[in-house]
């Protein structure tokens, strides 16, 4: 026998059931890519129902895993309530994004098959990042979320703004990856491991300058990805240049992916050194909320408005990370649950607002806020839905935005960080100003045009589902809060 083969490699045990959502999603992506080859030019749209079926299959796999808690692949992949909650969320967001995309991409005769393939790849990255428990998987999953995103932004090749947006996104993404990777390599240098649980036990104290530096680099890398101020410059230009459904994707699923990675890393690997990173997040959160909201006040373009408001919204989630204090485990759990709740609700309501903007702009309409005057008289349902999503983003009933804000406020009070609570309060008022200004335009001004805005069934369904989910969460919050409580690490 060949002596080289004598020593067999110890194979890690693979729990195929735990990997089922990822396998279905990756399989669907490949299937869509191959099917696209054989579809005639006027039937390329079939890639969309195929993708939807795949995402529903993934969702089924996620549901079949409920109540499972297991790790596989030598501890680098974990299935728990947290990862399942976010996998489910990515599937729901993915379905809504597909519905937003369908007419847009069909009408534009873009690369439909490739678009859906890239979208599925990005969602696959999201599924993986929720379960990844070592630095390398975490990093690669994060790249898998953003790299297809760059290509999707660049799909409108003839448009100069699309090219500019894609280039900015690409450069910032590469730079942030480099910074983050450098930080991760330092973490590996300090601890000698890439597995998060091992890093946690061997990282030592937060007094060591090298630990502080490495954690700082990692946080800065993530701050670029989630477009936190002062690393946000790429986001509005990229969203404006991108096809609007892609902007919706970047603002929700992609950003949530970054936050999931951040939560996993901070709470699985660096909780012992929280006193070094919590103040960094406090500064980032205050800046992100305030600057995002102040710039949003002056926007005339709906997508840019949503981009800046999205930046401001991510400030509230950063607040939850800023509250972490090693001496107060109860408050930490509350802050973690608040971050999870905020992410889930933010994803759905922001996607709803983007869907409404896409629906309005579909037939020669534009994205300028002045065009929204009198929408209530032209298309009452669209105006009601859009208004609902905006009010929800502002943090008021009748949708679940209120719940999200309440939980973050409660966590802040519990952690006794009152200055952040005040900053949040002021920001909620500023944000309400521009959301309400748009709502006033829609409901209380006279329209220049009379004809109603035609909304295709698919888009109506997407908005309807988002609105229904949000109303349900407001009426019966335990739907989400129980899941969030169970997902605490």
């Amino acid at each position, binding site marked *: 026998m060949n002596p080289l083969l004598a020593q067999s490699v110890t194979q890690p045990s693979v729990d195929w059931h735990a990997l089922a959502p990822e396998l279905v999603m990756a399989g669907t992506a490949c299937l869509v890519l191959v099917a696209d080859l054989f579809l005639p030019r006027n039937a390329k749209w079939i890639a969309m129902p195929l993708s939807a079926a795949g995402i529903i299959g993934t969702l089924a796999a996620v549901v079949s895993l409920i109540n499972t808690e297991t790790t596989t692949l030598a501890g680098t992949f974990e299935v728990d309530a947290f990862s399942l909650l976010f996998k489910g969320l990515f599937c729901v967001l993915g379905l809504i994004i597909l519905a937003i995309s369908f007419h847009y991409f069909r009408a534009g*005769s873009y690369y439909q098959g490739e678009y859906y393939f890239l979208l599925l790849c990005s969602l696959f990255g999201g599924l993986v990042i929720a379960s990844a428990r070592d630095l390398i998987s975490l990093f690669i999953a994060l790249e898998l979320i953003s790299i297809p995103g760059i290509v999707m932004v660049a799909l409108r090749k003839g448009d100069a703004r699309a090219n500019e947006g894609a280039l900015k996104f690409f450069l910032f993404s590469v730079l942030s990856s480099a910074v983050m990777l450098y930080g991760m390599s330092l973490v590996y240098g300090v601890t000698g491991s890439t597995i998060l649980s091992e890093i946690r036990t061997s990282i030592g104290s937060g007094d060591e300058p090298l630990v502080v530096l490495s954690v700082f680099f990692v946080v800065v890398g993530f701050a670029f990805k989630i477009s936190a101020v002062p690393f946000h410059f790429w986001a509005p230009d990229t969203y404006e240049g991108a096809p609007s459904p892609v902007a919706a994707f970047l603002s929700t699923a992609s950003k949530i992916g970054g936050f999931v990675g951040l939560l996993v890393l901070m709470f699985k690997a660096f909780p012992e050194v929280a006193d070094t990173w919590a103040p960094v997040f406090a500064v980032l959160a205050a800046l992100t909320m305030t600057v995002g909201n102040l710039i949003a006040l002056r926007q005339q373009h709906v997508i840019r408005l949503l981009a800046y408001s999205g930046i401001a919204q991510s400030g509230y989630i950063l607040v939850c990370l800023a509250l972490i204090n090693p001496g107060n485990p109860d408050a930490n759990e509350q802050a973690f649950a608040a971050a999870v709740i905020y992410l889930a609700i933010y994803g759905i309501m922001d996607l709803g607002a983007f869907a409404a903007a896409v629906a309005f702009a579909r037939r020669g309409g534009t994205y300028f806020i002045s065009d929204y005057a009198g929408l209530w008289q032209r298309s009452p349902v669209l105006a009601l839905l859009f208004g609902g999503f905006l009010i929800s983003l502002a943090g008021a009933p009748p949708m679940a935005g209120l719940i999200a804000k309440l939980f973050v406020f409660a966590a802040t009070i519990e952690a006794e960080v009152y200055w952040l609570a005040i900053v949040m309060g002021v920001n909620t008022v500023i944000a309400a100003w521009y959301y309400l200004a748009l709502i006033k335009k829609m409901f209380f001004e006279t329209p220049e045009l009379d004809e109603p805005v035609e909304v295709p069934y698919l888009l109506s369904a997407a908005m309807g589902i988002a609105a229904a989910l949000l109303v349900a969460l407001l009426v019966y919050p335990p739907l989400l809060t129980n899941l969030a409580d169970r997902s605490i690490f």
Partner: protein
Amino acid sequence: MADTYLQVIFWAFFALMAIAGIRVVTTRNVIHAALYLVATLLGAASMYVLLYAEFVAWVQVLVYVGAVVVLMLFGLMLTRAPIGSANFDNNQRLVGAVCAGLLFAVTSFIMVGAFEGQEIDFTGTEGTKVQSIGEAIFSIYVLPFEIVSVLLLAALVGAVVISRRDEGRVDS
């Protein structure tokens, strides 16, 4: 004796890397910058050799020098980018230099402080075995290994989509 010998090699390659690294950012010719990058990356490979990591060193040569830089050169040629001496400066040299200098000072200060006086004992080691790297990739790191394939596929499809010339379609 062996120590001084290694020290000389280390400082020689260090000088090569430092000079080439500075030239990468100061030269005005893109092709020259790419070639200086080759020298820097080769210097990094030699550092790996000095650390008894021959396999990593050769991967560095194959992937970075062999593939990445060649790809850059091909990219420059195929896209008909301005190859001659072009001025890409935007009057922010000073800011860039200050930022880079500060970053270098802080990181090197902290690194030296953290690892000062620690020595790696290489006696008896035969370097990293390729076998152990292979085992790590296909046991602990099999998940990232598989995800990278999806990532590369997405990047490949994306590159084709972006670089393809559209036939007779005009974007509004």
